[in-house]
C-alpha cells in the first residue's frame, strides 16, 4: 500500500517507515498509545477550538464564568466587524501578508533549487566548504543583527514598506540544503548525461530536466516557507508602519490594548490563522514529511 501511494504521490520522505517493535496487538479495547495520543491531540487542538468559540460569541460572553465552551452564533457578525474596521485594516493586512509570503516563497524555492542542484551535481572549486557554510547559516541567530538591518533599510529608504520584510528572506539555507538532499537522491547522473549529449546547456538542463523532477520537494519547501513567512513577527513588527501591516502585526495591534473587544480580537486571530489551517488540512502529509526530512539530515 505504501508503495502504491508513493507512486501516485512521490513525497519527499521515501525511506520505508521503520515499523514499531513488533508487539502483540490488542484485540479488545483501545491501546494505551491511542488513548495518550488522543489526549495529546485534544490539548493540541483545544486552544484553537477555544479561539473559534470566543470568535463566535458576543463580546459580553467572554467575561462570563464559567467560560463558554461551545460556539455561539455571532461568528459572521464578528468577522464582519473585523474586516470592516478601517482602523485595523485587516483586509489590507491579509493582502500584504499574501504578497510578502508569496514573493518570498517563489524566490526561496527558485534559488534553493538552483543552489541545491549546483551543490549536488556540479563540480566547482570549494563546493564542500561552501555547502558547510550554508549549513552553518542555519545555526546562526541572524535575528541578532536586526539593528544594522534596520539601519540598512533606512539607507535604502525601505523602512515601513513591504520590500523591507521581503528582501532579507528571499533565500534560505534550510531550503538550499533540503533541495540538495533531494537532488542527490532523485536526479540520476544518467539523466543529466543524456541531456548533455542532446546538446542542452547547463541552464537548459536545469530548467527542462531537473526542475520537473524537483517538483514534489519544491512544493514541500514552498509550503514550509510560506508558513514561516506568514507567521513572522519580530522583524515586521519592528520595521513596518501602521499603513503597511501584515496579518501578524495587525493582530498585535488588535490585541495591544487599543481594543477591549475580545470577540473582535478573537475573530481577527481566527482570520489570521485560517489560511494556514486550510493549507495544513490540504497538505498536512507533505508538511509533516518536510519537517521530518529536514530534521533527520541535520
Amino acid at each position, binding site marked *: 500500500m505504501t508503495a502504491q501511494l508513493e507512486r501516485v504521490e512521490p513525497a519527499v520522505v521515501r525511506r520505508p517507515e521503520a515499523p514499531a*517493535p513488533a508487539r502483540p496487538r490488542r484485540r479488545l479495547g483501545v491501546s494505551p498509545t491511542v488513548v495518550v495520543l488522543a489526549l495529546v491531540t485534544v490539548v493540541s487542538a483545544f486552544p484553537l477550538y477555544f479561539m473559534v468559540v470566543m470568535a463566535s460569541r458576543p463580546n459580553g460572553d467572554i467575561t462570563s464564568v464559567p467560560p463558554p465552551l461551545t460556539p455561539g452564533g455571532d461568528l459572521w457578525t464578528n468577522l464582519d466587524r473585523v474586516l470592516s474596521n478601517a482602523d485595523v485594516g485587516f483586509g489590507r493586512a491579509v493582502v500584504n501578508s499574501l504578497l510578502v509570503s508569496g514573493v518570498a516563497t517563489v524566490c526561496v524555492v527558485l534559488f534553493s533549487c538552483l543552489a541545491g542542484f549546483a551543490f549536488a551535481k556540479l563540480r566547482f*572549486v570549494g563546493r564542500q566548504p561552501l555547502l558547510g557554510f550554508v549549513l552553518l547559516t542555519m545555526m546562526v541567530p541572524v535575528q541578532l543583527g536586526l*539593528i544594522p538591518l534596520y539601519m540598512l533599510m533606512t539607507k535604502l529608504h525601505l523602512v515601513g514598506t513591504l520590500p523591507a520584510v521581503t528582501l*532579507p528572506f528571499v533565500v534560505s539555507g534550510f531550503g538550499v540544503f533540503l533541495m540538495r538532499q533531494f537532488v542527490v537522491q532523485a536526479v540520476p547522473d544518467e539523466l543529466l548525461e543524456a541531456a548533455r549529449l542532446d546538446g542542452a546547456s547547463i541552464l537548459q538542463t536545469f530548467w527542462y530536466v531537473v526542475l520537473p523532477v524537483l517538483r514534489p520537494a519544491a512544493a514541500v519547501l514552498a509550503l514550509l516557507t510560506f508558513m514561516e513567512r506568514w507567521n513572522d513577527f519580530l522583524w515586521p513588527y519592528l520595521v513596518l508602519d501602521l499603513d503597511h501591516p501584515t496579518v501578524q502585526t495587525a493582530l498585535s495591534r488588535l490585541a495591544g490594548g487599543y481594543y477591549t473587544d475580545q470577540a473582535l480580537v478573537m475573530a481577527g486571530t481566527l482570520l489570521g490563522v485560517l489560511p494556514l489551517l486550510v493549507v495544513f488540512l490540504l497538505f498536512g502529509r507533505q508538511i509533516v514529511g518536510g519537517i521530518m526530512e529536514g530534521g533527520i539530515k541535520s
Partner: protein
Amino acid sequence: MTTATAPPGRAGRTAGPARRGPRAGARGTRGEQVAGYAFISPFFLVFAVFGLFPLLFTFWVSLHDWDLLGTRSWVGLGNYSALLEDEDFWNALVNTLGIFVLSTVPQLLVALALAQLLNQRLRARTLWRMGVLLPNITSIAAVGIIFTLLFARDFGLVNWLLGHVGVDPITWQEHRWSSWLAISTMVDWRWTGYNALIFLAALQAVPRELYEAAQIDGASAVSQFRHITVPMLRPTIVFATLVATIGGIQLFTEPLLFNSGANAITGGTTRQFQTLTMYLYEQAFTGQEFGYASTVAWMMFLVILVVAVANALLLRRLRGVG
C-alpha cells in the same frame, strides 16, 4: 556521485581527455565551474547583505554611542562595562534563562516520549502526526493572544479550572514565577509536537532489531526508552536542543503579547518577564540607543554560545551515565 559517469558540461563542449581519467570527479569543466558559482550566488549574495553583514556590523555599532539618526561617537568597550552593571540587563538575562529552562526541558522530554508513541504501529499515522504538529502552524502572535485570554485573571479558563481544586485566582502577569510558567506553556504548546516529529524521524532510523532483542530479554518500555531510544537519538537530541536554545534565548513575541498595554515592551510593571530581546528592542527603538542595544545583541550571541556548549557537554555526560 563517485561513479565515473560524467556530469553535464556546457553544450558542444567536451572535456579534455586528460580530465577523463579515474579522477574526473575532482574538478568540473569550465562551464560547470561558472554555472556552479552562478547558481549558488543568489543565496550567498542575499545572505551576505541581509544576514552576515548586519550580524557582524552589530559589533562595530556596539563600540559606539550611536543613535537613530546615525550620530555616533566611539566609546570602545564602554557599552560592555556599562551593561555588566546594568540591573535591567541582568534581570532580562535571568528571565530569559528561567523561561528557557522551564520551557525547553519539559518540551524535549515530552517530545521524546511522544515520538516513541508515534513510532508504534498505528492506524491513520499521518493524522496523528498532523495532530501533534497543529500548534506549530499557529502563528506565535495568535498563540500569544489566545493564551493570554486563557490565563486572564477574572474570567480565564485556567483560573476557573484551578478554582475547582481550591486555588484562588492568580494574576498570571503579576509574579515572576507565574508569568514564566504561562509564557513557557505557550512555548511548549507550540513546539513540543514539532520536536516530536524531528525525534520520530530519527527514531525510524534505529534498527528495529534492537527493540526486538530488548523485548525478548524482557526489558520494560521505560528501560527500552532509556537504554535504546535516548542513546541512539543523542545526535538528534543535541540538534533539537541547539535549535531550542537559539529560539529560546531570542524569545520575544509571547512575552510581548502577554502584557497588552502601553508598556508591553518592559514585560510587566517591574520587568518581571522582560526577555533579552525585549530589552534589546526597548533600548534600540524606545530609548534610541543603537550602540547599547547592539551590545545586548552581542551578549545574547555569547549566551547562546555558552548555553549551546554547556548543553553539548551535558548531553555527552549523559551517555556515560546511561
